[in-house]
């Protein structure tokens, strides 16, 4: 299995018309220090009934929640103000991995904040909510 370094990954956002496989139409958020892609999770619907004969509960898959993504970067007052102004607006998002693949999703910025370290750098954090299914992207052209 190939090993893909984390360094070189990028976090981007674009308008709802942005194309996941396109290199244009996306704004890169620079100097990212921490990146957590969305983690979709499926609800469990229990189907256990008295017909069960082996004493094990049964389930079926319910709806899937696409989850949330978080990005932390070095604080920049201009970038922070720009993204703060985009809160709650429908956008598309994309994380590009260092091997050229990516994952994209529709959603919105849902949270923002800063972290101040007396001996370090000030950081800013943003959280996005996934609406619908995240889309794996094999390559960007």
């Amino acid at each position: 299995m190939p090993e893909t370094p984390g360094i070189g990954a990028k976090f981007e956002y674009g308008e709802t018309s942005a194309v996941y496989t396109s290199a244009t139409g996306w704004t890169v958020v620079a100097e990212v220090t921490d990146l957590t892609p969305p983690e979709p999770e499926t609800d469990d619907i229990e189907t256990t009934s008295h017909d069960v004969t082996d004493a094990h509960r049964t389930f079926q898959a319910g709806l899937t929640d696409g989850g949330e993504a978080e990005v932390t970067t070095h604080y920049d007052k201009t970038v922070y103000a720009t993204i703060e102004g985009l809160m709650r607006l429908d956008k598309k998002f994309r994380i590009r991995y260092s091997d050229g693949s990516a994952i994209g999703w529709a959603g919105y910025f849902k949270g923002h904040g800063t972290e101040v370290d007396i001996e370090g750098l000030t950081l800013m954090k943003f959280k996005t909510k996934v609406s619908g299914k995240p889309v794996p992207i094999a390559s960007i052209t």
Partner: protein
Amino acid sequence: MFEYTFVSALLANEDITEYVGEQIDPITTTQTAQRPYLTYSLNQSEPVSQTFSGPSKTKWGTYDVITVADTYDDCLNLSNLVQRTLNGLAVTTDNVIVHWTKYEDSTDIEQRIEPGTEKPLYVRSDTFKAMYVPIE
């Protein structure tokens, strides 16, 4: 360069230059140096954070300033002057910004013997940490 910022600060302190003149040298001093004098060494310089596009330009630097004197009192007094001068140092020059400096630690004053003689000399090392960024 980052080192010049704290050397300049030491040289700007008349109480210090009254002791050492301009004898503030990297790592070691010249053979003709007259005590007391100061030497310094940059121990560590590392980026404050790592980003997905490379290390941050802002760095932490740790350095020692070593005081060498003929008497215990001179060594103590000069070392204390160095600590007071550099602790809290924040300065902007043409090519570097020092955001802060903090005094971290000192060794005990050690008595050593001048090589080739039986004359005692006194040595102390003060350690400082600073956060700085080169101006590009």
